[in-house]
């Protein structure tokens, strides 16, 4: 049962007592969305998008023209522009904010679920979104809505600038719209781009289990046509998202048998219907169980979560509590292979690893400068571990399937970074007694584990073995 603390959070740290009521401990973390525990600077998405705009405009409209015959000059100036727009710094700052929630806040359970939702509404690797805005999107749209109904999160994520740009909805133009007509007069073809519409159905709400057709996808794309960033010569594609009636496909549309009128309200209405479709809650219940409990969730596991959803109208704190309770009930039967990020955070929490640079140190950064190496430590580390949270390869985010995280190189990373982490621990946690207490607190079979790691004399080796035992790799 002690794996419960690792299953739904990151285990118990050295300063934390074993809660007398584990469920109460977890549930108390889920009602509110508190302030961030990170005490350094936190920039709004809009400001970060401004830096992104300077980057794309400066690169595309200025440097490419200026240095057309000079490859090296182009590279040099492009590097300057990177630093002038903070390209190498912001995502490191975002990682500090993100990991503080797991390691330093009073609500690590909320943090683990935050990572789940960030990955559910994933912004995958595209352009330079990761370096500038993905972290902020996950703060302002995902985490900020974790005490709301699922519908609110879905509405805001769908119409958020990051998602609209990530899934090309700016290129989704109704073929019978005014904009398409104007384009035709100039000899250009404009039409529907189904990308975002398909992912809204497949990945974000009802999933293919609901049985929608290709025609539903196209109709959904028509509903979404016109939702795009406000274009400007200097803004390029980084303007605020608005509804452009000129690019909207006229006429009513039908998705999953329901009719939607032409216009701005169509998308909001369609999302309301999608999130209330039974397939949506089944899909999300399945994904929550897969994230927390097992690759192959059973109907019995999903049922209480679906019920909580129905009773609360998709109110996320209630949905989360139901999922946590299921995880608790199955904690002795199932262990879930942890992805690299969750593994790292567990190790850092339980073994008191100094993972995150201090706010004061990060705030030393000045725009225009190249960040110093230690300010970029997290970016390197996550890349090395094979799971930078803002660089998922596809819109379906990082995998929740164990097999995808098992390969020789990925395992090697856990071996070598367990050792690296040991040397980032404070001196008073580098004692035998510290480990004994930590193992006692966090594992159900402390005697067996102590015996296994007792076969090695040096503490650093004990540490490496402990964090690569099946008991740790699976929680």
């Amino acid at each position, binding site marked *: 049962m002690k794996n419960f603390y690792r299953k739904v959070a990151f285990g118990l740290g050295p300063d934390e007592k074993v809660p007398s009521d584990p469920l109460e401990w977890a549930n108390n973390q889920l009602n509110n969305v508190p302030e961030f525990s990170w005490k350094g600077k936190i920039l709004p998405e809009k400001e970060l998008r401004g830096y992104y705009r300077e980057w794309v405009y400066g690169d*595309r409209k200025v*440097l*490419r*023209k200026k*240095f*057309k*015959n*000079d*490859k090296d000059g*182009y590279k040099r100036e492009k590097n300057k522009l990177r630093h002038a727009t903070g390209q190498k710094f912001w995502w490191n700052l975002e990682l500090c904010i993100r990991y503080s929630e797991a390691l330093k806040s009073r609500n690590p359970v909320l943090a683990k679920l935050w990572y789940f939702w960030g990955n559910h509404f994933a912004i995958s690797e*595209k352009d330079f979104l990761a370096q500038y805005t993905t972290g902020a999107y996950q703060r302002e749209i995902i985490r900020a809505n974790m005490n709301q109904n699922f519908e609110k999160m879905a509405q805001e994520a769908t119409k958020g600038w990051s998602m609209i740009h990530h899934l*090309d909805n700016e290129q989704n133009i109704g073929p019978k719209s005014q904009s398409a007509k104007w384009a035709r007069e100039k000899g250009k073809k404009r039409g529907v781009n189904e*990308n975002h519409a*398909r*992912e809204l159905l*497949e990945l974000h709400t009802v999933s293919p289990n609901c049985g929608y057709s290709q025609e539903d996808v196209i109709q959904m794309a028509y509903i979404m046509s016109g939702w795009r960033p406000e274009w400007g010569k200097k803004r390029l594609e980084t303007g605020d998202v608005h509804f452009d009636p000129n690019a909207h496909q006229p006429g009513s549309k039908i998705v999953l048998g329901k009719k939607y009128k032409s216009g701005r309200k169509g998308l909001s209405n369609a999302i309301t219907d999608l999130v209330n479709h039974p397939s949506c809650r089944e899909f999300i219940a399945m994904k929550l169980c897969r994230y927390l409990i097992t690759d192959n969730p059973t109907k019995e596991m999903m049922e209480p979560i679906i019920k909580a959803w129905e009773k609360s109208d998709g109110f996320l704190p209630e949905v989360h509590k139901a999922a946590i309770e299921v995880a608790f009930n199955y904690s002795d039967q199932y262990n879930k292979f942890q992805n690299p990020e969750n593994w790292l955070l567990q190790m850092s929490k339980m073994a008191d690893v100094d993972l995150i640079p201090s706010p004061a140190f990060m705030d030393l950064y000045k725009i225009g400068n190249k960040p110093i190496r230690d300010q970029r430590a997290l970016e390197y580390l996550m890349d*090395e571990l*094979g799971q930078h949270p803002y660089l998922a*390869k*596809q*819109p*379906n985010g990082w995998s929740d399937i164990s*097999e*995808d995280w*098992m*390969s*020789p*190189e*990925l*395992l*090697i*990373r856990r*071996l*070598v*970074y367990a*050792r*690296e982490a040991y040397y980032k621990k404070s001196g008073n946690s580098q004692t035998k007694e510290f480990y004994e207490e930590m193992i006692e607190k966090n594992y159900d079979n402390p005697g067996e584990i102590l015996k*296994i790691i007792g*076969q*090695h004399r040096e503490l650093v*080796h004990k540490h*490496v*073995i402990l964090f*690569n*035992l*099946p008991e740790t*790799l699976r929680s």
Partner: protein
Amino acid sequence: MKISRRNFLKGSATTLFLAGFNFPVLANTSKKKNLVVIMLRGGMDGLCAVPIIGDKNFEKRRKDLILDKTIKLNSDFALHPKLKNFHNLWQNNLGAIVHATNIPYTKRSHFDGQNLMETGGHIPYSIKTGWLGRGMKLAELKGDGLALALPMPLILRGIPSNDNFYPSKKRLPRTELLQLLKSIYANKSEHDLANMMEIIANRSTMNNGGTSMSRKNSSLALKAGLELKKINGPRVAVFEVDGFDTHAAQGGVNGSHSDSLIEMDSIFKSLEKGLGSEIENTLVLTLTEFGRTIEQNGGRGTEHGYGSAIFMAGGLLKKSQVYTDWPGLKKKELFEGRDLNSTIDARSVYASAMSSVFDIEFKRIQKEVFWGDKLQNLSEKLFKV
């Protein structure tokens, strides 16, 4: 170019002859054959890598990007002058090109295109496995894949237990610690983990002392070549080369597109070195999401296009050739008036290659890996069957 009916009959007669007389062909047919795929990300410019000779349309539209001192391959096509290693292969009948080809994707997004080049599908993100993984599954090649990358690339998904190699910059723990973990995994019935720990433990002894290896593609390729050479080593390897998206300063011989092509060329060289004589039983293919526009842009770069080229190397090639159904570069011959057209579905090349290397009937690959899509069997034209 077309294979004649007569040739076809001759071919089948030989096969029948061998089969009927119980000829000792085993030594030949049971040879371990390797397939290597190099993914060129960003949109490889087939016309920069393998320019057409003496086409006025081409010269006019790209006047600042025309290469000096190209290497003449035949009367119609030349080779980028920096592709020296590939040219060596070509001269030894170990190099060939398919030109004016691409996956059936025309929308020009890297994001979608790279997904489709790996899945082999038509709708981005609708398929969650790779064509190579599905092909390996059909050939029952579990545990035979090697990715020279840290995350397992999508193209290999569809078959479990692939290996990967992308050396960590840190030293591995000592072997006895690895052996201990391996025995713990085995005791706890964690067989997959135990197998991987075995691979890791072998690696640690090999590296003796653990001097960190370079992650440059040229050194990864040397390592891959040595592994593929082993009779019980992997049979499939996958590489990644980035940086083909040259919107600006694509330049000529020393431009940025050349840098990426040179990296690709270094893989050919190191693979050949690592494989030694086993290059004879190996086929190397490149893969990209699309080609680039014919016309240069204002930044002397090129934009996303459609048709590109496939580089092929190894002893399983039939001969050195530029295989193409050339569509021409006149405005009306271009795709949407701007891009080199694709007249050969690149998946036909990949399906034929898998058929030849994995010894599986083309039709089965077509049906089970590519959903029965209309593909041509090019095995006899391109490869030793």
